[in-house]
């Protein structure tokens, strides 16, 4: 802090300090603390607040543990988000490798710019595009019918639709970290592996993937977090049988009218995501400082 004041003087130094304090204390810390406070209090009528029943308890969390439908949806969301992360990784690894090691600098520049275009368009529209593509009488069914791959139109909305839409929405969050990681691999290492007789698959498995571990971990962490916290893809592309945990949270706030329970569910989601993030980064030995590049 002394350095900040030494560099910018007392006026600017204090201003910078105040701005950062407003952000971290007022806009990040205080809201989260209030959410925790809500999560451990019962939902009471205004007259009862501060009364004998207004005590901290684990009731809202236990409610989630005991309510079998919500519990199932919670675990399904965790599992499906992990699946989204894995599928996105599988989809993104080949082009990331190509861009980082095989393409000419000109190709790389053009392809990277092209790749960012769907990313710049907002998530609701990206999801809407899938909503139109996957409609019962939509283009995908029409093409598959015309090719004779299916003889009845398929209902894509539901688990399949949500997965497809989410993988699509998060490609860039996976592709860029992996691309950055593979780019720093010296090509002579790949050539050495080839010269020593390793097949393409073995070269990837033993040389490229270990080198890109940090990038892969970063991409997976972001994708998992975005998928678990997504509302729009399950809302548009889902079916009644494919409800997402965020939809349950939304219902507590705006239909069930129990904000305390909603806050408890949101807290569980937050703890889940932070745990997954920190454990994955620890396993892959990635520093948090390197994540946000």
């Amino acid at each position: 802090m002394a350095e900040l004041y030494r560099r910018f003087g007392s006026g600017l130094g204090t201003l910078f300090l105040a701005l950062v304090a407003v952000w971290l204390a007022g806009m990040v810390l205080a809201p989260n603390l209030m959410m925790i406070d809500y999560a451990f209090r019962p939902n009471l009528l205004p007259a009862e607040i501060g009364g004998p029943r207004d005590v901290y308890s684990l009731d809202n969390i236990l409610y989630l543990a005991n309510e079998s439908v919500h519990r199932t949806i919670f675990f399904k969301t965790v599992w499906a988000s992990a699946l989204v992360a894995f599928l996105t990784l599988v989809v993104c690894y080949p082009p990331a490798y190509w861009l980082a090691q095989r393409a000419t600098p000109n190709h790389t520049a053009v392809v990277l710019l092209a790749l960012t275009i769907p990313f710049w368009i907002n998530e609701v529209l990206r999801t809407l595009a899938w909503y139109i593509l996957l409609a019962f009488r939509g283009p995908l069914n029409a093409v598959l019918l015309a090719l004779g791959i299916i003889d009845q139109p398929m209902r894509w909305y539901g688990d399949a639709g949500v997965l497809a839409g989410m993988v699509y929405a998060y490609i860039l969050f996976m592709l860029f970290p992996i691309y950055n990681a593979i780019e720093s691999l010296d090509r002579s290492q790949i050539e050495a592996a080839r010269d020593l007789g390793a097949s393409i698959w073995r070269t990837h498995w033993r040389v490229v993937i270990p080198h890109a571990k940090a990038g892969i971990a970063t991409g997976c962490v972001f994708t998992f977090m975005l998928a678990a916290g997504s509302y729009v893809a399950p809302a548009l592309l889902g079916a009644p049988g494919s409800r997402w945990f965020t939809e349950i949270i939304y219902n507590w706030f705006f239909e069930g009218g129990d904000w305390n329970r909603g806050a408890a569910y949101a807290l569980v989601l937050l703890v889940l995501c932070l745990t997954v993030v920190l454990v994955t980064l620890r396993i892959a030995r990635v520093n948090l400082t390197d994540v946000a590049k």
Partner: protein
Amino acid sequence: MNAADRIARGLFAFYFVAFFVYLFAPLAIMAAATFNTSRFPTITPWQGTTLDWFNQLAADTGMWQSLRTSILVAFFVVAVALPIGTAAALMLTSLHARARSFLYAVMVSPLLTPGVVVGISTLVLWRQLGVGGGIFLIVLAQASFIICYVMLMVAARLQRFDRTQEEAAIGLGASKFMMFRRVMLPFLKPALIAAAFLAVLQSIENYNTTLFVRGFDTPLTVYIATKVRTGLTPAVNALALIMIAVTIIGAIVYEVVRRRSRSSIDV
């Protein structure tokens, strides 16, 4: 090159084509459906070519209202996020290694928080203070994580800042404020412009956070998502087509600014 390698290469070429089809086909279909007369947006079957959905879009007052709301929010988000993000980046560069990595972890934590949680925590805090959802809360909730992006971009630029310039300005008798205004801000300008662009796009595209704090205000993303439920027509596709065009232009401008800022460092 043995047979297995040749198969791998063939598969990869096929894969790369499939990857780009996967990336662009949904957007192309959505854009093309704007010109189909069918009431439900689709391209199969093609019932006839029309430009009428653009008229329908122009007549949709709710859409224009929601666009105004989104632009207003984006304006305030930039007004909040640029000064705070810059202050945060300057603070980081004035710290010693250990304190810096701790503060850095705290500062990027909003990026690792699910969007719905950002919205919910803001909503419950301000309800306790008697303030309900609306534009004010949308701005606060969005800014709380958009500041991270600004901070990261300004910090990246600051890493290439030559501190001797700072000392030279002071040594030549400039006040600390003068040094900041005349030396540091001009140096940071490209990063600030790029960060403002990114903040606007992030703000306008946000849905997950906004949904919880919107109150009775309806920004554009919420409006579009509601339309899907209450009666989707290709008028929404017309809007999507326009937004795709605008975002492509925005992306190109952003890229140009970024490249210019990069080349100005190389000099």
